[in-house]
Structure formats: C-alpha cells, structure tokens
C-alpha cells in the first residue's frame, strides 16, 4: 500500500507527466510561460487546487451518480477556486490581483478534470491527495523550464531582473521576439517531450 502511495506521488512527476505523456494542460502552459513569475504562481495554484479537489471528489466518489459525475467534479472545482480567490481578495489583496487572470485558467485546466476522473473517482483520499501533489509538481516543473527559456531568451531577464548584460545590446545582441509568442512554448514543450521519449523508450510509438 505504501508503495502504491509513493507511486501515486512519484509517477506523475516525470514518467507519467500530465503535459509530456497525456498532453493535458497545454493551453495554460502556453498562456503563462512567457515569464517565470506567473509560471510559478500558476504551477503552485494548480498543485494546491488539484490536491484539494482530488480529496473532495475521492471522499464523495461512492455517492456520485455516474451520469452527472463530470458536472459534479466541475462544480466542486469551480466552487473551490472561487472560494479561494474570495478569501485571497479579503486577506491578501495583492496576491489576488495577480491571480485574477489565472482563476479562469485553473478551472478549465484539463489536468484537474483528468485527475479527478481518472484517479480520484477510483481511489481513497490519501492516495488521491498524493496523486494531486505529484501531478501539480510535474505540471509546475514543465512550466518553470519553459518559462525559464522563454524569459531568458525572449526578454533577457529572469523574474524581471536583467540577466543578459546591457552592453551586449550595444554590440548587436537582440532579444528573440519569437520566444514571447505562444507558438514558441509549443515548440519548447515539443523539445521536452522529445527528451522525455528518448529516456522512456517504452512510450515511443512506432
């Protein structure tokens, strides 16, 4: 049992990563990765929300009528995200202003619905919680890697601080504007998937 729990936590981080293997959550991975800071904020929020909603759905799983299970999952996620954003608005206004853009992206993140449907509906609260944390970390890790590359080469900064020396620009160095555009995120995710497949031969398709 303990082994199974560790597997639930560890597997989604790399071997069975939601973005790399299941190609879920791509839309938000494109939207928030032009800079590091929003990528980390988004990764953290998704981790927390997946873990909590996984636990709630796991507790309810035996009572949910089969035909409306997706709607119930959606209601739980939407209510959770709304409540969290309301609480932040009251007690941490600055954070809530920064997060306001992400609220919609979190609710519609395919990883959330994917984990609820594929894992929490079949497993107990504790493994579900670990599964949520694992998937969240796996998602956040990819976001951070993509955002790191995009911000460094697209804006010459990291976390908004100038990294590329300013005098390089005088010698003809230019920021790569394409990096800021969403298609570049897709190409970068593609490159990571390439590396991932090369390391995990059993996932390769013929």
């Amino acid at each position: 049992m303990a082994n199974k729990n560790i597997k639930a936590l560890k597997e989604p981080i790399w071997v069975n990563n939601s973005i790399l293997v299941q190609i879920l959550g791509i839309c938000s991975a494109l939207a928030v990765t032009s800079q590091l800071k929003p990528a980390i904020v988004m990764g953290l929020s998704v981790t927390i929300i997946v873990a909590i909603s996984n636990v709630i759905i796991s507790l309810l799983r035996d009572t949910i009528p089969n035909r409306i299970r997706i709607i119930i999952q959606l209601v739980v996620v939407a209510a959770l995200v709304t409540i969290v954003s309301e609480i932040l608005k009251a007690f941490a206004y600055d954070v809530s202003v920064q997060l306001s853009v992400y609220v919609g992206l979190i609710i519609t993140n395919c990883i959330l619905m994917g984990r609820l449907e594929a894992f929490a509906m079949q497993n107990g609260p504790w493994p579900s919680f670990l599964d949520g944390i694992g998937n969240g970390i796996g998602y956040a890790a990819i976001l951070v890697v993509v955002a790191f590359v995009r911000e460094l080469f697209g804006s010459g900064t990291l976390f908004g601080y100038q990294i590329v020396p300013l005098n390089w620009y005088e010698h003809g160095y230019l920021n790569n504007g394409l990096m800021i555009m969403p298609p570049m995120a897709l190409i970068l995710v593609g490159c990571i998937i390439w590396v991932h497949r090369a390391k995990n031969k059993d996932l390769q398709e013929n």
Partner: protein
Amino acid sequence: MAAKKFRCKVCGYVHVGDKAPEKCPLCGAPSSEFEEITSDENGGEKKKKGIDTNSNIYTILYATVIVVIVAFLLVFVSETLKERQTANVINDTKQQILSALNLRDLSDVAGTYSEVIIADALMQADGKLAEYEGEFNTGYKSEYDSGNLHVFVAEIDGERKFIIPMNGFGLWGTVWGYIALDDDRSTVYGIYFSHSSETPGLGDEIAELKFQSRFLGKSVINADEQVGLKVVKFGKAAQSSQFEVDGVSGATITSTGVDEMINRVLSKYIPFLTKQCCKEGGCEGCEECDGSGNCEKHNNVESND
C-alpha cells in the same frame, strides 16, 4: 451460471471462463491484471450502501443537494468577506490614484491619500471644478459613462496637481489608468496604468514603470487646444517630440487601446484643461477673469455650499 467472469483492469475487456486468460486479447496485459467479477446474476449489481446511485430520482436529488450546498457556501463566504474586500478595493483605488503622483508601494495608503489629495471634484460644462459630494468611487468607467467627470486635486510640496481617471479597452479586456498633470494642466507629472487581462510579457508591460515613465514631462494639450499626447508604435516616437510616447513593442493593440483611452477621455476634459471659463470673455460677474486663462480664482474647487 457456472463460468466465472474476469475483467481486465487495463482495458475493461471481460473474459468468461474458469480462470483468467494468460494474455488479454485486447491490450495484451498479463493474467495478473485480471480481476474476478463477483456479482451474481440473480441478485443484480448490489451497491455497497443499498442505494441505486444511477436512478433518476437519486441523480436529481444529488444534483439539487450539491447545488444548494455550494450556493450557500459561496453566499456565506462572499457575505462574510464583503466588508474586508470593499475596504481592500477602496484602498487599492486610492493607491492607484497616488501611483499617478509617483507615490508607489505606500505602507499607509489611506493616511497619505487624505494628506495629499485635497479634493475629489467634478468638472462642470464650463471647465470649472465643483466639489463631488458622493461617496468615494472605485469604478470610474461607470462615472465617466454617466457624465461625471472626476478630477482629483492634489498638493505636493505646495504645488497643485490634477489627476484624471481614464478607462478604455486593450486586447483582451479593460485597461484603465490615472494621469497626473502639473498646475499648467498640460505637463504630465505622473501616470499610472493597469489592466484586467493583457498578455503577460507583452501587453501587461503597460502596468510597469518602464513604460509609464516614458510619459513624464510630455505635454497633453497642443497648440490647437486639442489633446496632442499620443502613443505611437515602439521606436517611432521622435526624440524631440513633446507629445509622442513609444508604445509597448509586440503589443500593438494594447498600445492603441491606451492611445485611444487617453485621447477620448482627455478630450472630454478640454474645457477644464484649457481653462475655458477664464478665456471666453471671463465668467459672469467675475472681475478676475482677464481672458488670459491664468485666473487664480478658478484654479480652486468651488464648494457647493
């Protein structure tokens, strides 16, 4: 039925026989992945708690209960936190107004606001200011739409500044800002922009100091007494120009939105910005108006009493 049933845990294939097959014919999983289906046909599929969770009545009841619970929860959370949230929004609006005066990241926003801002006024048709008597507003778009043209009068180091709230649209949603002008009602003393959902890394740069500081010292009113301040394409602003400001590169629509916002909103304020009441032969019964437009009296906010 004598034969047992086995279900493949990987693909759901059901095998009928005495024992699980060595290999699943559908997905190739080994026999260890099969589990026996234990429900017998006579008793039907019995649920653990004896309730049929797939019946229509149960489904409808379940949906109703969940919706009611969630609705109450949301109402409860929203009502208990409302007061704090409103206070935060008011505080945030005041911080934004003060940001236009280059007073950013303050620790005591409310205190600084009451110290620096000496009046919240409305512009009259003739360009004079009259005191605004309502409660402090947090949404200046609706005020603008209903014709209440707010001007905040501030005093910094003994000098008078005027702050005008602006609102418009960017690429994805609303953009808004506050522009602070010097006593001459044309030179930009400071400016602040914010937005609801512009693209991170591109359009959202209008909220950054780097962009906003490009406005400092520019002029709003041109020789024709119209709004001359313009946001142009990045890199196209003439160095010597008093009116042109570089937009954000890669965010043309957001920059155009900011340009449109400045032009449209400030055009409504032309009577105030050009001190019209003092120019057109002076105000009725006012001996101080000499037509020069430099009438000390009308720099002040008229009280309604």
